C-alpha cells in the first residue's frame, strides 16, 4: 500500500512512466459536436485515459489505488473512479484504516462532495468501527458548523450502529455546538433527533421528565435570544410530538409578544424565563405562537384575539408574509362563523 505521500500527483505523465507502459490508455470518446464539453487539463486527460484503460482491463492492484486517488484529487465528483477504487480495496483486502486516514483529509477538503461521504460510509460498513468517527465529525463541524453531509453522516452513524456508548456524549456535544451558535438549526435538529427520534435509551425512560427538561432548555434559549426561528420551531416540534397543547406555554410566550417593559421585576421564574433587557421585542414568532394558542382554544372571542395578532403580523411585524397572515385570518373567520 503506497503511503499517501507517494500517491500524490506524479510530475511525470502516466504515458512517460515505464511502470505504466503495459497499460493501454483509452482516450475519451466524444462525438463530432459535443454538448457542454469541459476544457480538460492535460493532467486530467492523461489520468483518465489510464483509468479507462485499467477499468477495461479489469485490473485490481496497488497502482489502481494510486491512479484512482489521483483522478479523485483532480475531480472528487468522479463517481466511477470512487466506485472502482472501492471495489479494488475490497478485492485486495487492503488495510482500511489506512484508507480511512487518507479519507480524513478528503472529508476536510471536499466536505461538500457526496462521493466523499458515500465512500466513507461504505468503508465503515466493512470496518464496523464507528467510535473514532465522532471525533472526526466534531472536528469538521468546528470548521463548517452547518455542513449538511457531515451532520447527515453523524446521524446515520448513530442510528445505524446504535451502540449505547456512541450515544453517551451526544447531548454534551449538542451543548458544545449550541454554545458556539444558538441559531445553528442543524444543532437544534440534531437535539430533536437524539431526544425524540432515535428510540428511548437507558436513563431516558421517564418521558415526563424528558419533556420538562426539553421545555426548560428551549425556553431558556428563547429567553437569551428571542428572535431565533430554530428555537421556536423546536418548541413547536416538541409540543406537537408529545401532543401537548400550545396553550400550556401561553404564560411563557406572552411577554415576548409585546414591547419590552421599561422596568422589569427581578423575580426569577424558572418555568417562565422572561426576555432579557436588550431583547428586540415584540418577537414575530411569539405573536404567531400566541395566535395559535387562541385559535386552539376556539370560540369567537379567542378567534378575534388571534385575528388581531395575525393582523399585527401582516401589517407591522412580519409584512413579507402579509398574504399568508391574511389567509390565516380568512380561514379562521370562515371556520368560526
Amino acid at each position: 500500500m503506497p503511503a499517501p505521500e507517494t500517491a500524490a500527483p506524479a510530475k511525470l505523465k502516466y504515458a512517460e512512466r515505464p511502470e505504466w507502459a503495459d497499460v493501454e490508455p483509452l482516450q475519451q470518446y466524444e462525438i463530432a459536436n459535443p454538448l457542454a464539453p469541459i476544457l480538460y487539463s492535460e493532467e486530467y486527460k492523461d489520468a483518465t485515459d489510464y483509468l479507462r484503460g485499467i477499468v477495461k482491463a479489469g485490473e485490481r492492484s496497488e497502482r489502481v489505488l494510486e491512479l484512482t486517488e489521483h483522478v479523485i484529487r483532480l475531480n472528487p465528483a468522479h463517481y466511477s473512479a470512487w466506485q472502482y477504487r472501492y471495489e479494488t480495496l475490497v478485492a485486495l483486502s487492503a488495510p482500511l484504516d489506512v484508507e480511512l486516514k487518507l479519507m480524513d483529509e478528503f472529508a476536510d477538503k471536499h466536505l461538500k462532495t457526496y462521493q466523499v461521504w458515500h465512500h466513507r460510509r461504505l468503508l465503515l460498513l466493512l470496518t464496523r468501527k464507528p467510535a473514532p468517527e465522532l471525533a472526526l465529525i466534531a472536528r469538521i463541524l468546528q470548521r463548517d458548523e452547518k455542513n449538511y453531509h457531515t451532520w447527515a453522516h453523524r446521524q446515520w452513524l448513530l442510528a445505524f450502529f446504535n451502540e449505547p456508548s456512541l450515544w453517551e456524549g451526544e447531548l454534551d456535544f449538542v451543548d458544545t455546538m449550541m454554545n458556539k451558535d444558538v441559531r445553528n438549526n442543524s444543532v437544534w435538529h440534531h437535539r430533536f433527533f437524539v431526544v425524540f427520534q432515535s428510540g428511548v435509551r437507558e436513563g431516558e425512560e421517564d418521558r415526563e421528565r424528558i419533556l420538562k427538561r426539553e421545555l426548560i432548555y428551549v425556553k431558556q434559549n428563547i429567553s437569551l435570544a428571542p428572535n431565533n426561528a430554530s428555537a421556536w420551531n423546536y418548541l413547536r416540534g416538541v409540543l406537537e410530538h408529545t401532543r401537548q397543547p400550545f396553550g400550556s406555554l401561553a404564560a411563557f410566550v406572552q411577554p415576548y409578544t409585546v414591547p419590552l417593559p421599561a422596568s422589569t421585576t427581578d423575580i426569577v421564574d424558572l418555568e417562565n424565563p422572561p426576555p432579557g433587557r436588550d431583547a428586540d421585542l415584540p418577537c414575530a414568532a411569539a405573536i404567531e405562537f400566541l395566535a395559535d394558542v387562541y385559535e386552539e382554544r376556539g370560540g369567537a372571542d379567542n378567534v378575534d384575539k388571534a385575528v388581531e395578532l395575525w393582523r399585527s403580523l401582516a401589517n407591522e411585524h412580519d409584512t413579507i408574509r402579509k398574504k399568508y397572515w391574511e389567509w390565516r385570518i380568512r380561514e379562521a373567520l370562515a371556520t368560526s362563523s
Partner: protein
Amino acid sequence: MDVPHPLPPLARSAHVAYVKHALANLPGSMVSLDASRMAIVFYCVGSLDVLGVLQTETSETDRTSWRTWIWEQYVAGRYGTGFKPGPFMSSSSSNARPAVPCEQDPPHIIMTYTALLSLAILRDDFTRLNRPGLLHFLGACQNKDGSFSSMPFGGGDSDLRNLYCAFCICSLLGDFSSINVERAISFIGSCRTYEGGYGQLPSCEAQAGTTYLAIAALRLAPPAPRPRLTTAERVRSEHWLIHSQDSLSGGFRGRTGKAPDACYCFWGGAALQILGAQDKLNAHEFTQFIASCQFRFGGIAKTPGQHPDPYHTYLSLAAAAMYAPRLDQNEQRYGQWEFAPFDPLVNARVDVVRWARERIPAPRRH
C-alpha cells in the same frame, strides 16, 4: 415595503448568451461537472426554453446535433436501459460495442431524468426509447428500504433526489409497475421532520430542496385510497416553507436560519405551488431577489454579487416563470418577466410536459 421597489429588468439576452456559451464550452475549472454533464445540458437547454428563445436562438441543425449527443449517452445492460451523464468513461461510441464493460459505466437515474426532459424540450420523437428497459432500470435502482440509488444494484449514493427522479420517469411513462411505490412512500415519510420540511435521508435536517422532492414525489405517485399527506402534515410543510422566505431580501432559505439562495426560490416556491399555496407568498419580493442575483455579464448566481452557474441560472428562471403570473401586471417592467406556463411538478414548461407525456409512454396499439 408598502411601496414595492420596481423590478429591475431581466437581462434576457445576456442570460441566453451565458447558457449558449456553457453549452459550447465549459472551463477546466468546472471539471467536477464531468460526471454530471447531462444535468448541465438540461439547465442550459431548459434556460433557453424557459426564456422562450429555443426556436429563435438555435438552429434545427443545432437541436438535431444536441439530440444526437444525448442519445449517444443512452446505454443498455443487464440492468436495463438509461442515460449516462456523458462520455467520461467511454472510449468508443455507445452505439458500437462498448469498450468499457457496462457494469463500470451504467446509466444514472438523475441523468436519465434530465436527459428525458432535455429530449422533450428538443421535441424528440422518443422512437429510440426502450420502455421495458427503462422500467427495468428503475426497478434495479430501488433498495430494500424503498429508497433509490443513483445507479443499479445499490451503486452510488441513495437519497430523495433519486427517488423523485424515479417517480417522475414512471409518471411520464404512465407506468409504476417496476417499482415498489408503497415502500418508497414510507421512505419519504421517514424523511419528514418536526419542522415540517423533509431531510435528504431519514433523521436528517429539513431542507427546501429535499422538501420539494418529497412533496413532488408524493403528488406524482399513483392515487391511493387515502391522501398521501394528512392535513396536519400538509399544513406543517406549508408553514415551514412560507417561513423560508427571508423578510429582508425576499429570497428563499434552504434551511432555517441560513442565508437565502436563488436555487431555493425554485425548490421552496415550486413546493408551495404543488401544495396549492402559491398565493400565500410575496411574489414581488421573491422576483426582486432573483433579479438581484443576476450577474452583470449574464447568468444568475446563488446570491447577489456571486458568480453565476448553469444550475442557479436555470432554477432562478424557472422560479421566476412560476411566480410571474402573481406579479402586479401594472408594474412598468412586468413584460420582461413574462413567461410561458410552467409545471412545478416535473420542472419544465407545461408544453414540454405535455409533449413528454404524449411521447414517452409506449405507443398505444390499435
